[in-house]
C-alpha cells in the first residue's frame, strides 16, 4: 500500500485481534460498535424497503386495475373480500407506504446506516462519542416499527403520512382508524426519539472527535452533509414530536388543539373546543420540509464523495458545495408553507413562502452544476457506483425542476395534490436519494465486509431500476398535468380521468419491473458477502480516512491513529506521480508550499 505513510508499514502485524473477545450478542446484536450499528440499520432499512415497496405495489395495483383482485397479496390480506381491497384499505396502503418509506427507510438508511458507519471512519475517530446512546438509537427504531405494524393490524393510519387533523384527530372521521392512528403517532414519536439520539451524538462526534489535522474544511462532504442533517434534525424534529403529542392527546385525552368547535363528523355530537387545524399543518411542515432535506443532504454528500473518487478529480468547488448545503438547511427552515399554498393560509405568508422556496433552488443549482463540473475533465469508468451517481444527478434535476412549477403559487393552485406532486417527490426521494444510496452501498460495501459487490448484478440492478423508475414516475407528471388527484382509491369515477387507465397500467408494470429489480439488490448484497472478491484497504483508490482503515475495520477502527494533512479530494494531484490519489493521511515532505496548510490549528 501507501509507501508514503510509514505508520502503516508496521500496522499490518498489529491486526485487531488483540481485543478481549465479545460474545455474539455483544458483538452483533447489542453492539455498541458504530460499524455494526450502521450495518444493522442498513439491513433493517433494506428489508423495510421491501415492505414499503410491496405496499406501493398494492397502491399501483388498485390504480391500474381498480377493484380487481390483487394476485398474491390480495388473497393473502383480503381473502375475505374476494381479494378486493376496500377504499379504507387503499388509504391505509398509501399512508403506510409513505410512513414506512420515509420513517423506516430513507431517514434511517441515510443518517442511521451511513451516518453511523461513515462518520467515525471518515473523521478518524475510534467510535461515536456515545456508543451506548448510539446503540439505543438503533433499538428505539424497533418500538417504532412495532407501533407502525401494530397500526397496520388495527387498520392502518388513514390520514395520509401528513396526518392532517381533523381527519386524524377525531376518531369518528375515519371510523376504521381508532387505535391505528394512535399507534401511528406513537410510532412517529419513537422514530423521533431515535433520530434525536442519533443527531446529538453525530453532532458531538463531528465537533469533538476529529482526528488530528482534520479541520472543518478538510472534512469530506459526506461528513458536512451528515453534520448539517443532524442540525436540521435536532432543531426541526422536536417540533414534530411536540405536535405529535398534541395530536395524540387530541385523540385520546380530549384536548382540542386542532379541533375547532361545532363540527359534526359522521353524525357525532358537535365537537367542543377551539383549536385550529392549520396549526398542525404549520408544525408538521416545519419539521417535514426540513425533513425532505434530511432525506436528501446525506445522499448529496455521499454522491459528491463518490463522484469525485469515480472521476479521479477533486470535487468542483468544495467550499461552494459546503456553503450550498448550509444554505439549503437554513432556507429549508423557512419554506415549509409551500405545502400549504391552497390551504387557506394568509396570502401574505403565501408570497413570502413562494419567494423563499424559489430561492432554495439556488443552492441546489450550485450543487448540480458542481457535480457536472466534477465529472468535467475527469476520468470515469461506468461501474455501478458511477452509474448510480450520474443517475442521482440526472434524476434530482427532474425532481428539483418540477419543484419549480409547484413553488410558483398560482401554478401550484392547479398542481397541488395532483400526481404532479407524487411525481416530484418520487423523483427526489427515490430518483435522487435511493440511487445515491444504491451507489453508496456498492461503494462502501467493501469497507463493511471486506469484499466487493458483484459488478454484473449491480449493473443489471441499476439498469432495471432506472428503466422501471422512469417508466413508473415520469408519466406521473403527465397525469398531474391532466389533473389526476392523488390519494384517490378509484379516480375513474370522474369521467375526465377515465381515459387515463392505460397510462396507469403502464406505470404499474414499470413499478413491478422496478420492484423485482430490488430483489437483485438484496441477492447481490447477500451473495457478495460470501462470494464477493476479497479486497484490501482501498479498492477504489479513495482519499478519505475510511480507506486508511482495514477492511472491515476492527474494533476501534484504525490500527494507527490517522493524522490528516490535506483535504479529501486530492485526486490526480500532480504532487504524486505513480498514482492518481493522495490520501488525507499521506505525509509529503514539504517542498515548501504546503507547510502553511499544516499547522494543527485548533479549529472549532
Amino acid at each position, binding site marked *: 500500500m501507501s509507501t508514503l505513510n510509514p505508520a502503516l508499514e508496521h500496522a499490518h502485524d498489529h491486526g485487531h485481534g488483540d481485543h478481549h473477545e465479545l460474545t455474539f450478542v455483544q458483538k452483533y446484536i447489542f453492539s455498541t460498535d458504530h460499524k455494526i450499528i450502521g450495518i444493522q440499520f442498513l439491513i433493517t432499512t433494506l428489508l423495510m424497503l421491501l415492505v414499503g415497496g410491496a405496499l406501493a405495489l398494492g397502491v399501483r395495483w388498485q390504480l391500474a386495475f381498480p377493484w380487481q383482485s390483487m394476485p398474491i397479496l390480495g388473497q393473502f390480506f383480503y381473502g375475505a373480500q374476494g381479494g378486493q381491497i376496500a*377504499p*379504507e384499505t387503499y388509504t391505509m396502503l398509501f399512508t403506510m407506504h409513505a410512513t414506512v418509506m420515509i420513517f423506516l427507510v430513507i431517514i434511517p438508511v441515510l443518517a442511521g446506516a451511513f451516518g453511523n458507519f461513515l462518520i467515525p471512519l471518515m473523521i478518524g475517530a475510534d467510535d461515536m462519542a456515545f456508543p451506548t446512546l448510539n446503540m439505543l438509537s438503533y433499538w428505539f427504531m424497533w418500538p417504532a416499527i412495532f407501533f407502525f405494524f401494530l397500526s397496520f393490524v388495527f387498520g392502518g393510519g*388513514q*390520514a395520509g403520512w401528513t396526518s392532517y387533523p381533523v*381527519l386524524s384527530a377525531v376518531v369518528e*372521521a375515519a371510523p*376504521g382508524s381508532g387505535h391505528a392512528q394512535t399507534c401511528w403517532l406513537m410510532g412517529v414519536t419513537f422514530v423521533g426519539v431515535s433520530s434525536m439520539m442519533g443527531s446529538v451524538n453525530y453532532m458531538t462526534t463531528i465537533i469533538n472527535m476529529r482526528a488530528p489535522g482534520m479541520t472543518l474544511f478538510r472534512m469530506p462532504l459526506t461528513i458536512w452533509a451528515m453534520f448539517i442533517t443532524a442540525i436540521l434534525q435536532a432543531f426541526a424534529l422536536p417540533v414534530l414530536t411536540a405536535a405529535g403529542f398534541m395530536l395524540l392527546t387530541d385523540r385520546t385525552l380530549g384536548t382540542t388543539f386542532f379541533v*375547532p368547535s361545532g*363540527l359534526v*363528523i*359522521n*353524525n357525532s355530537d358537535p365537537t367542543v373546543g377551539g383549536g385550529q*387545524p*392549520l396549526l398542525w399543518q404549520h408544525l408538521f411542515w416545519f419539521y417535514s420540509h426540513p425533513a425532505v432535506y434530511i432525506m436528501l443532504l446525506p445522499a448529496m454528500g455521499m454522491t459528491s464523495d463518490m463522484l469525485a473518487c469515480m*472521476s479521479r478529480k*477533486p*470535487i*468542483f*468547488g468544495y467550499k461552494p458545495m459546503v456553503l450550498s448545503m448550509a444554505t439549503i438547511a437554513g432556507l429549508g427552515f423557512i419554506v415549509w408553507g409551500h405545502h400549504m399554498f*391552497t390551504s*387557506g393560509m394568509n*396570502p401574505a405568508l*403565501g*408570497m413570502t413562502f*413562494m419567494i423563499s422556496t*424559489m*430561492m432554495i433552488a439556488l443552492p441546489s*443549482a*450550485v450543487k448540480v452544476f458542481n457535480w*457536472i*463540473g466534477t*465529472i468535467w*475533465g*475527469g*476520468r*470515469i469508468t*461506468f461501474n455501478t457506483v458511477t452509474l448510480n451517481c450520474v443517475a442521482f444527478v*440526472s434524476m434530482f434535476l*427532474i425532481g428539483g425542476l418540477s419543484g*419549480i*412549477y409547484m*413553488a410558483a403559487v*398560482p401554478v401550484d*393552485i*392547479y398542481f397541488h*395534490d*395532483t400526481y404532479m406532486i407524487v411525481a416530484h417527490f418520487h423523483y427526489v426521494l427515490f430518483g435522487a436519494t435511493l440511487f445515491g444510496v444504491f451507489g453508496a452501498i456498492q461503494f462502501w460495501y467493501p469497507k463493511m465486509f471486506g469484499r466487493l459487490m458483484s459488478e454484473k448484478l449491480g449493473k443489471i440492478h441499476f439498469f432495471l431500476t432506472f428503466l422501471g423508475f422512469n417508466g413508473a414516475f415520469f*408519466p406521473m407528471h*403527465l397525469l398531474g398535468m391532466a389533473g389526476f*388527484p392523488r390519494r384517490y*382509491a*378509484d379516480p375513474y*369515477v370522474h*369521467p375526465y380521468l377515465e*381515459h387515463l387507465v392505460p*397510462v396507469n397500467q403502464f406505470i404499474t408494470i414499470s413499478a413491478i419491473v422496478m420492484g423485482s429489480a430490488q430483489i437483485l439488490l438484496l441477492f447481490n448484497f447477500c451473495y457478495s458477502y460470501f462470494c464477493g472478491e476479497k479486497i484490501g484497504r482501498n479498492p477504489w483508490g479513495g482519499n478519505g480516512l475510511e480507506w486508511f482503515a482495514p477492511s472491515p475495520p476492527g474494533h476501534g477502527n484504525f490500527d494507527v491513529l490517522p493524522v490528516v494533512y490535506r483535504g479529501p*479530494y486530492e*485526486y*490526480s494531484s*500532480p504532487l504524486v506521480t505513480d498514482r492518481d490519489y493522495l490520501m488525507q493521511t499521506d505525509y509529503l515532505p514539504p517542498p515548501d508550499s504546503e507547510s502553511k496548510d499544516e499547522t494543527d490549528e485548533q479549529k472549532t
Partner: protein
Amino acid sequence: MRVFWCLVFLAVPILAVLSCIYAEDYGLWFPGEAETLLGKQIDDLFYMINIIVTVTFIGSNAGLCYVIWRASGKQEEGGKAWFCHGVHSLEVIWSIVPACILMFISLYQLDVWMQFRVRTNYPTEAAAKPVAEVTARQFEWRIRYPAPGKDLQLQPQPDDLYTVNDLHVPVNQPVMIQLRTIDVQHSFFVPDLRVKQDAIPGQVIPIWFNVLHNGEYDLTCAELCGWGHYKMRGRVVAEPVEDFQAYLVKLQAEQSYDGVANEDSPELAQSGEE
C-alpha cells in the same frame, strides 16, 4: 458499454421532452383550455415556467451527457484527470444567473396570486353578493343559495335553497362562493377552471372565479378526507344569468312543493346530521 450508458442517460431528456410534446395527443395535458380568466393567467405562467425549466433541463442534461461522454473516453486516451478544484468565475455565474431567473419567476407570479387571494382585490360586486355557500361534508358538497332576489347571509336563512353536488353559477361574470366544511378538511377543485381551495374546519373561505363559457365542469375534492375522498364528485354548471335565475326559481318551487310549511322545510333539508 460506454456508448450504451451514455445513451441511457441521454435518453432521459430526449424521452422526457418528446413525451411532453406528444402528451397532449393522449389526453395527458391540461384537461382543456382554462375556462376562467385567472385560469388563463395560470396557464400562461405555467408555460412561461415551462420554457425556462425546459431550457435549464436540456442545458443541464446536455452538459451532463457531454461530460460523462468525454470523461468516460479518458480511459482509452490515457492520461490523468484534470486536477482542478473549481473555477471561481463559473461559480459566480451559475449562482447569479439562476438567482435572477428565480427571483424574476417569483416576483412575476405575485400578481395572479394577489388577484386570487388578497381580499382587497376581489371583484367588488361578486364579493358583495356571493352566489352560494358550498359546504363540504364527508363525502358530498352541499350548496346553499339565497332565495332569488336576496343576498347570501352567513347565517342560514329560512328561505335559502339547497342542493347537493350541483353548483350553478352565472357565466361570464366574476362570482364568489363561500367555502366551508362541516367536518374534516376538503378541497374544492375544479380542474377546468384551475380553481382549488381547501375548506378548513372552522373557517369560511371565499373563492372567486369568472367562468368564460357555458358548460358543466367536474368538481372534485383534492384533500384527503377519509375513505370516500375519491367519490366526492360534483359539478359546476356555468350558464347565462337568466338561466341561473330561472334555475333558482325552479329550485325554490321544488323546495316549497314538499307539502311541509314553506318556512320550515329548508331547515330540514339542510340539517347536516340526520
